């Protein structure tokens, strides 16, 4: 913001002096003047247009006026190229500020709605919806009875389903990326795997859910039977875990592959030179070197599938109570719980308690996902080998 010129606060003298380096430049305080002008103008226009004062309109108009006025001022004082440059600079800053709005708004809404409920009813974390009926929610609204119910079953469902999905996808993803990096010689098969992993990354999450459902249904009707009881069996935790694996495998493969590729070849060659077998080289040299990256990639993948709603919604059914058994019975995951509480409140006439529970669950879900992301970052940074290629 400081000019290199020998401080000439008055613009007119500055222009008159015609210092060869700063000639034709607008003085450093221009933006403050323009901002003040924009603020005043926006205030007046908002007041005239809406007949009062409203914050969003005021802020938006200020931004618009500021960008336009800066362009015109620069155009007049300097030249068109500088003006265009300044215009785009302001627009890029504007884009950044615009993107902050939804983030702040989302977090504000979730914390603002969820935290008071969670603090007032910490028992939500260790009770399920067993015994919570429309009548009890009605009582909460009409007579101020304490808020009943919680989302323990959702937490347990989420953990169980995600754990099974991780158990399925990490070995497959890890071995596939080892194949891609260490064994394939760039043939058609490895190209096909890379290509189809890319394709898998793009599978919509609900389609993954439909796939798992269709697959398990086909399996059960073929091998077990076609009765209604058998069809009921299709919806279980395992089906949801299969759906999540379809979403998780490509993420694991991509991140692991990237990490294996940055392991320096000198390490492998040194190991081979000592006469170590390839598979032992991979197990003892390559994997430990890349371990931090792999672990953080897997954690990120877990964080991603923990927040998935749609595939679990169509595969795991909906339960009101705790179910530890992944292999039979309906299960509820935390995101599905949030969705159900918002869309089908326990008491349709008194939706407020359901919404409160949903927001508290949303807060817990966000915290879980953020903590997982944080862990991934810490793993990546704290345990990174000294030489990662970057």
């Amino acid at each position: 913001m400081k000019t290199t010129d020998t401080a000439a606060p008055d613009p007119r003298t500055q222009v008159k002096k015609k210092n060869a380096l700063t000639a034709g430049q607008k003085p450093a305080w221009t933006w403050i003047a323009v901002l003040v002008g924009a603020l005043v103008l926006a205030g007046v226009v908002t007041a005239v247009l809406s007949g009062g004062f409203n914050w969003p309109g005021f802020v938006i108009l200020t931004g618009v006026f500021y960008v336009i006025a800066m362009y015109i001022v620069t155009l007049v004082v300097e030249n068109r190229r500088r003006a265009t440059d300044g215009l785009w600079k302001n627009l890029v800053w504007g884009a950044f500020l615009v993107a902050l709005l939804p983030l702040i708004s989302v977090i504000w809404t979730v914390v603002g709605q969820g935290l008071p409920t969670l603090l007032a009813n910490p028992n939500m974390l260790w009770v399920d919806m067993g015994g919570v009926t429309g009548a009890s929610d009605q009582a909460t609204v009409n007579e101020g009875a304490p808020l009943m119910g919680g989302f323990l079953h959702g937490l347990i469902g989420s953990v169980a389903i995600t754990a099974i999905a991780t158990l399925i996808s990490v070995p497959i993803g890890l071995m596939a990326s080892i194949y891609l990096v260490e064994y394939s010689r760039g043939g058609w098969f490895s190209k096909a795997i890379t290509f189809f992993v890319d394709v898998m990354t793009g599978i919509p999450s609900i389609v993954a859910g439909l796939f798992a459902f269709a697959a398990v249904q086909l399996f059960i009707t073929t091998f077990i039977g076609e009765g209604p009881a058998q069809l009921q069996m299709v919806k279980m935790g395992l089906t949801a875990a299969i759906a999540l694996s379809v979403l998780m495998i490509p993420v694991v493969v991509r991140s692991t592959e990237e990490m294996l590729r940055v392991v320096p070849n000198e390490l492998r060659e040194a190991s081979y030179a000592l006469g170590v077998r390839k598979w032992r080289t991979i197990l003892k040299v390559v994997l430990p070197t890349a371990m931090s990256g792999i672990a953080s990639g897997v954690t990120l993948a877990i964080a991603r599938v923990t927040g998935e709603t749609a595939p679990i919604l169509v595969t795991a059914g909906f339960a009101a109570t705790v179910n530890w058994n992944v292999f039979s019975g309906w299960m509820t995951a935390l995101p599905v719980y949030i969705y159900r509480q918002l869309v089908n409140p326990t008491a349709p006439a008194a939706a407020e308690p359901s919404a409160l529970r949903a927001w508290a669950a949303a807060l817990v879900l966000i915290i879980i996902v953020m903590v997982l992301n944080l862990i991934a970052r810490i793993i990546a940074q704290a345990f990174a080998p000294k030489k990662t290629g970057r």
Partner: protein
Amino acid sequence: MTQTASAEPKKGSALKRSRGGAAGDKVFSNTALAAGVIILLVLAFVAIFLVTESLPALWPQVFSNQDSIASADTFGQYVLPLMGGTVLASIIALILATPVAVGIALYISHYAPRKIATPVGYVIDLLAAIPSVVYGAWGMTFLAASMVPIYGWLHNNLGFIPFFAGDPSTTGRTLLTSGVVLAVMILPIITSLCREIFIQTPKLHEEAALALGATRWEMIRMTVFPFARAGIISSVMLGLGRALGETMAVTLVLSPGVFSLSLITSGRNATIPSEIALNFPEAFGMRQSELIAAGLMLFIITLVVNMIARWIVSRHKEFSGAN
């Protein structure tokens, strides 16, 4: 695997011992290969199972002995309006998100001071980490309500455009609101992909442009954009793929109905994912096939979009940083 290794060394010389790992090598490489095969099989199964389960809805006369499907005369009549709604919502999201995303990517790569750029990158990743159901809940309770006055304004001033015709919604639960939520959700994806590419612009090109007296914007237009063009397009396509398949945001926000160009009326339009999410849990028989078939259509659309994106990247691989 380890057993074969530890069992072998008992007998004989050092030479033999080194040969003993050969079995381990075989087992290990075959396991790796098998994992690759499994991935291909899974994808093949996705396609096969979806097709098998949706056949009764695709050709009802042949596969299910019925004249028509459950909710319309032909499958086309059922799925085309849904496809229209899906594409419409995604395009709104793209139009809103792309300029902002490219702007933020430029901000991180070329405008922000280094001290700010890294935290901003984290914030964008944070935005990507928030679960979709939370975005949906936010859109449903907060955003929808605050969009209502905007819809009124759009209807009064721009009502002659078909998109803003019709009664403005009083709840705000419209396709446009869903589009805005989708835009917020795909913003971090496009941003992080674009940022990666912008950063890879050769420093020499940039410095050459600046040395010739270009302003920063001219430098960006002359060196960064030509270098990153394919990458920007493909990241936008990937964002589109994500928007097409996004379920929860739309399901929670939109109050669905028949297809219509009006974006500001409640009870109009629906998207394939939201249709599936709303109806699948209670569906059985023909209805279930119908929804799976709709999912198959969605799969095909996103597949095509993603393939185009990859194709653009691979075509420009040699002379850009898009790979």
